[in-house]
């Protein structure tokens, strides 16, 4: 309960900070008024069309990645698992890159995220065919690795064949991940798909708790493993696929956040699910704030900052827990 309140406060604080920190200094009361369409029309535009979608997307992407990371680690009983493991984010990125490369992305605002989502869905279909609906977790991982590698190769190929250096750099920047310059349309596209994913993942708590004792014990306690696996696969695909589609590749959240919060969740996978969801939202909001506060004129990318924060944090955790792991 204390953990829940602390994380809620942290996330809310980051959410507000994200709304009120930026290039244009807008005071708190004016900003609130502008959010609801009152006051200076310029402020209204900034708050409603720039900051709000950016903040909402950062929170949604963080929530999706944190939740999916905790679910994936709980299912595989491995603290090194992360949601990208099943190849969804790699495939979504491939879809986006193809949309950029072919110029399809510039036709409609939503062309890029929709293509990315289609590719994410395709990768889930491929995983199901490869690993089978009743496949073991090992086949699932192997199929995911194969799909990720294939998607990465095709992404490189698209870069390789890009018509001009301008297109190549556009692709590169997109792949670094960002929630800047997104519209509410992106929020409305991603939200329903993510919400489906969140619902599927949030329902895994019982099964993941039981899996602490191994697959056999969990099944004997009445948990259907094949159903659990399907639910995890669809939940991760929807949440992470939609996140990648609107924000590009943002790494480390799904890996570091569950690891960071496991101690506070007393090791329970079901507690860790929602804790990681909140923690992930707070972390991505914070990383996005950093991109705005540090070198704002150079347009730092969210994925880069996230990795720069995440990797040392992870190293620190490894250093601290090396005795437990050994």
């Amino acid at each position, binding site marked *: 309960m204390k953990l829940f309140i602390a994380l809620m406060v942290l996330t809310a604080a980051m959410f507000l900070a994200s709304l009120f920190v930026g290039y244009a200094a807008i005071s708190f009361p004016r900003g609130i008024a502008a959010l609801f369409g009152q006051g200076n029309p310029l402020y209204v535009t900034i708050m409603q069309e720039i900051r709000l979608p950016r903040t909402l997307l950062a929170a949604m992407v963080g929530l999706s990645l944190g939740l999916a990371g905790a679910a994936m680690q709980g299912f595989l009983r491995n603290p090194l698992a992360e949601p990208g493991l099943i190849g969804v984010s790699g495939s979504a990125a491939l879809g986006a890159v193809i949309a950029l490369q072919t110029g399809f992305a510039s036709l409609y605002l939503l062309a890029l995220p929709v293509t990315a989502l289609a590719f994410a869905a395709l990768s889930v279909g491929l995983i199901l065919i490869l690993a089978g609906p009743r496949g073991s977790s090992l086949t699932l991982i192997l199929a995911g690795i194969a799909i990720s590698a294939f998607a990465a190769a095709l992404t490189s190929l698209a870069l390789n064949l890009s018509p001009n250096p301008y297109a190549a750099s556009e692709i590169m920047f997109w792949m670094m991940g960002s929630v800047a310059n997104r519209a509410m349309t992106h929020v409305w596209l991603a939200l329903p798909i993510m919400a489906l994913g969140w619902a599927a993942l949030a329902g895994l*708590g019982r099964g993941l*708790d039981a899996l602490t*004792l*191994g697959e056999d014990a969990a099944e004997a*306690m009445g948990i259907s493993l094949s159903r659990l696996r399907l639910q995890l696969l669809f939940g991760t695909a929807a949440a992470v696929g939609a996140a990648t589609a609107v924000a590009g590749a943002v790494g480390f959240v799904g890996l570091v956040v569950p690891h960071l919060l496991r*101690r506070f969740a007393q*090791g*329970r996978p079901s507690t860790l699910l929602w804790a990681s969801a909140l923690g992930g939202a707070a972390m991505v909001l914070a990383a996005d704030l950093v991109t705005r506060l540090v070198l704002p004129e150079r347009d730092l990318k969210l994925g880069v900052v996230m990795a720069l924060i995440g990797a040392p944090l992870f190293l620190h955790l490894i250093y601290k827990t090396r005795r*437990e792991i050994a």
Partner: protein
Amino acid sequence: MTLLSVHNLTVRRGECPVVDNASFSIAQGECVGLIGPNGAGKTSLLRGALGLLPHGGRSTLSDLPARDRAAQAAWLPQTREIAWPMSVERVVALGRLPYLARGASLGTEDEKAVNAAMSRMGLTNFRTRIATQLSGGEQARVLIARTLAQETPLLLADEPIAGLDPAAQIATLEVFQTLAQEGRAVFTSLHDLSLAARYCTRLVVIHQGRIVADGPCDDVLTEDMLADVFRLRATIVPTPTGPLVQAMGVLT
């Protein structure tokens, strides 16, 4: 009352049957020992009877829907796994999971079951310790306590006393004996034949997938059986606390 009856259970690995036409039943008040050499099919028999492996034949447990089966029988797998650093109390409380509604927390009845299970396994002082930091034998006791917390009429255990110190082995089997005397039943595989004879009310012997003997310990545990099934040259020494199997050598 019969808690488990199994008819012509056959479990195949590929073409080869690892459990071949096994039939037996277990009634209230019994503590049945399942003995047999390595690879005889003990684990497959137990898992097949629970319905955790695809099988031919019938098993009353395997016929039940998963949720009802979890209320009827608790299962202690041979591989001891505690994946996350949880407190002993929380691991034991996982045994209550089949009875909890989604997202519900433990009720007073659940707490009582968890406390009773921990005190039966002598874990009361370990309550807040992190289970993954305990020794292997202590973890094994935590996992046995988890199955006890499930408070099912039937307990199936796969080599529960392997790796425990002698006192913990005896304490565990005494808990099983008590469960049987309370009107529940235990079906456990184990390798210590003397302890099996002392604490089990009945022994089932499995050899190359077939049940070759099933009956009271004195009838089943003979020097001929030990030679045929276990390839063991042994004498059985009767003592006031039960027969003692003294292994002398291996038959070639």
